[in-house]
């Protein structure tokens, strides 16, 4: 009999994702991904003023807060036909870029690196040797023997105290860890540097959004007032601060993140053939330069790739009811027209139908319904979303920045482009994207400063602000890209209030269960063929799942209040 491994929760941080994987002869032969938590944002929004929706959606998730606010204001603007002023577009883009750079770096060091880096091994490292290696790949100022020795001794104390804390769940000493102790030391040292640095970068959100966490957004623009001389406005001092944070971000990404990524990847090239999974990629795109309505102006382009064919990019339309549909064959919901049909989010209906075992349970019934996530499909195809999808779409569309950097990374690692279709490729794509976005952030900043210096201070349009100016009914979609993948909010406004509001979040695309045809979604498919040396310590499964940057706390949601079964859902 085969051995079914259960990983629950799978996130190193607290989360609500459960993976069941069947392992035969040391290889995963089947896998099931389940969201074990349900959340009710859509129900909360019904009946509210659509201009307030962003403040609620922003609370859905602690990691991608700003992108939910962005998707929300866009959906309302899209429904009402509002185009935001140029400065508002630039500020939104700057907040978007800051979120990307912070989130991707945090993901790499805090959520993913420990799948590759053995923290305990670094205690044996020679700090002088570690500094030599570090200095050979980067001019980062903290790559000194003294700094590395200090980090090592701090970690030693921490480990000896028995309070492993954030490192408690690692499979230290597992033979899948390939890095020499010195590279492990370098990575752990940069893990701590990243913690310190990220908290500075997010001040961009505090300055533009007025507060943090959960910065302010605004339908019709951004709630920023520019006045170079005024103490309480976004003045010269604050703009200079943002400029220096952006400069530091580029330095950190280029001197720490990217060199570490390349150094670590060099030891794990076998992972360029593992974890590819689906052959279809979907990106909604973002970073408009001529308005959200002008998709061709997006720096991150929109499109779909099927069968890994980079010669053909398919157009994607969020409002076309034949494109994006959600299925529930294996999800704990029921549809009026039967569980086999798919519904576009505008026509979405959801009723809880929990048929799973009463927790705590050993295994889910994977023949039936087994997840609180619905199964989204694009034209019936299962799609992977995230940095890899975005970079592939941009690459295939001929974006010069992306083509150049992807080419350089492939050359450095001496591997062909097909390695991108893998666990390692996913992780590398996130790094490539971070570097490009950090530079775009600088460009947006320069453009904003030039506008302000030229006297252009407007950040908000009152056009269609008053509900009296709205049509009786209106529908809109706000599409964006969360750091972990395509995110969209669909809103229907009736008589000035929200009549229906729905989200399809990136982890729903990637972590959902099979569809009615039995097609696996991204996590499940990517795990097939993954080697597992020791079923007691399945670090290999974590590598592939973490390469997607799971965020299950925001992936599970409902549309309908009926459902007493919620109470049976356990929190882990």
């Amino acid at each position: 009999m085969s051995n079914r491994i259960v990983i629950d929760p799978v996130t190193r941080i607290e989360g609500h994702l459960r993976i069941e994987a069947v392992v035969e002869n040391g290889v995963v032969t089947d896998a099931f991904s389940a969201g074990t938590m349900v959340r009710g944002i859509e129900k909360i929004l019904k009946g509210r003023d659509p201009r307030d929706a962003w403040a609620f959606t922003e609370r859905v998730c602690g990691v991608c807060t700003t992108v939910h606010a962005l998707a929300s204001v866009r959906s309302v603007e899209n429904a009402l036909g509002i185009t935001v002023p140029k400065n508002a577009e630039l500020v939104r883009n700057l907040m978007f870029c800051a979120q990307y750079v912070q989130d991707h770096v945090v993901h790499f060091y805090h959520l993913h690196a420990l799948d590759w880096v053995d923290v305990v091994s670094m205690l044996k490292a020679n700090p002088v040797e570690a500094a030599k290696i570090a200095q050979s790949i980067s001019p980062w100022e903290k790559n000194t023997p003294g700094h590395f020795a200090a980090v090592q001794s701090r970690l030693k104390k921490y480990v000896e105290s028995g309070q492993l804390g954030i490192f408690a769940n690692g499979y230290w000493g597992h033979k899948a860890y390939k890095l020499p102790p010195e590279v492990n030391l370098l990575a752990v040292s940069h893990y701590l540097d990243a913690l310190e640095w990220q908290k500075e970068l997010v001040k961009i959100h505090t300055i533009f959004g007025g507060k943090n966490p959960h910065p302010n957004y605004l339908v019709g623009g951004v709630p920023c007032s520019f006045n170079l001389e005024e103490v309480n406005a976004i003045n010269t001092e604050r703009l200079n601060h943002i400029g220096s944070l952006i400069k530091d971000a580029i330095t950190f990404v280029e001197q720490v993140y990217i060199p570490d990524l390349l150094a670590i990847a060099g030891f794990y090239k076998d992972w360029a053939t593992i974890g590819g999974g689906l052959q279809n990629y979907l990106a909604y795109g973002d970073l408009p330069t001529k308005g959200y309505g002008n998709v061709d102006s997006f720096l991150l382009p929109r499109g779909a790739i099927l069968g890994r064919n980079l010669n053909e990019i398919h157009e994607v339309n969020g409002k076309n009811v034949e494109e994006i549909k959600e299925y529930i064959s294996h999800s704990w919901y029921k549809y009026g027209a039967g569980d086999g049909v798919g519904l576009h989010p505008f026509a979405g209906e959801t009723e809880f139908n929990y048929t799973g075992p009463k927790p705590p349970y050993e295994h889910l019934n994977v023949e039936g319904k087994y997840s609180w996530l619905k199964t989204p499909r694009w034209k019936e195809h299962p799609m992977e979303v995230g940095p890899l999808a975005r970079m592939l779409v941009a690459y295939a569309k001929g974006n010069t920045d992306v083509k150049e950097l992807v080419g350089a990374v492939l050359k450095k690692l001496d591997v062909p482009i097909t390695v991108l279709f893998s666990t390692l490729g996913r992780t590398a794509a996130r790094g490539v994207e971070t570097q490009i976005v950090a530079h775009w952030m600088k460009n947006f900043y320069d453009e904003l400063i030039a506008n302000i210096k030229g006297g252009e201070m407007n950040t908000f349009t009152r056009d269609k602000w008053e509900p009296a100016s709205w049509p009786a009914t209106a529908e809109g979609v706000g599409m964006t890209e969360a750091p972990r993948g395509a995110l969209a909010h669909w809103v229907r406004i009736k008589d000035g209030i929200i009549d229906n509001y729905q989200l399809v979040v990136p982890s729903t695309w990637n972590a959902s269960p099979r569809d009615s045809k039995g097609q696996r979604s991204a996590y499940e498919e990517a795990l097939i063929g993954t080697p597992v040396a020791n079923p007691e310590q399945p670090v290999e499964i974590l590598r592939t799942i973490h390469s997607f940057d799971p965020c299950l706390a925001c992936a599970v949601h409902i549309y309908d209040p009926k459902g007493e079964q919620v109470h049976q859902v356990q929190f882990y």
Partner: protein
Amino acid sequence: MPQNRNIAIRIIGIGNLLLGDEGVGVHVIRHLLDHSNLPAGVDCLDGGTGSLVLLEPLQTAHRIILVDATLDGAPPGTLRRLVPKFSSDFPPSLAAHDIGLRDLLDSFYLLGDELPDVILFTVSIAEMQNMVTTLSPEVLAAVPLVAAMVLEEVGVVDRA
């Protein structure tokens, strides 16, 4: 790493406003801001589901007072005052915050900063509720009580 600690006491309420009682920490902050005149040097923060964003607020105060919900099995509305030394001293299930409070505190300790005094007030809740932004009667009744405990804590520090 030495930080500029420019705040004497920072009160941080943690929680998700979309999960009913789980958001009680944020409700307590709102209550404090609406009903109290906090002395100079005392700062209130709606920590929401803020995760690593909260690292700096933790690093820049001499004393931290956290308010959070807990699923510890006690009757809903039960209040506790804890002085945690390690993240593992934190009560179970502060789980809906993505990067949880425990992870945050671990990161904080790892950075080797001189620790501020951390005091944690917990409010026991019966379950995570979905689709509600309001509190159950038991937990709602606890809000002014926790707020009063927090104010007493602030007062004690002031006299010290």
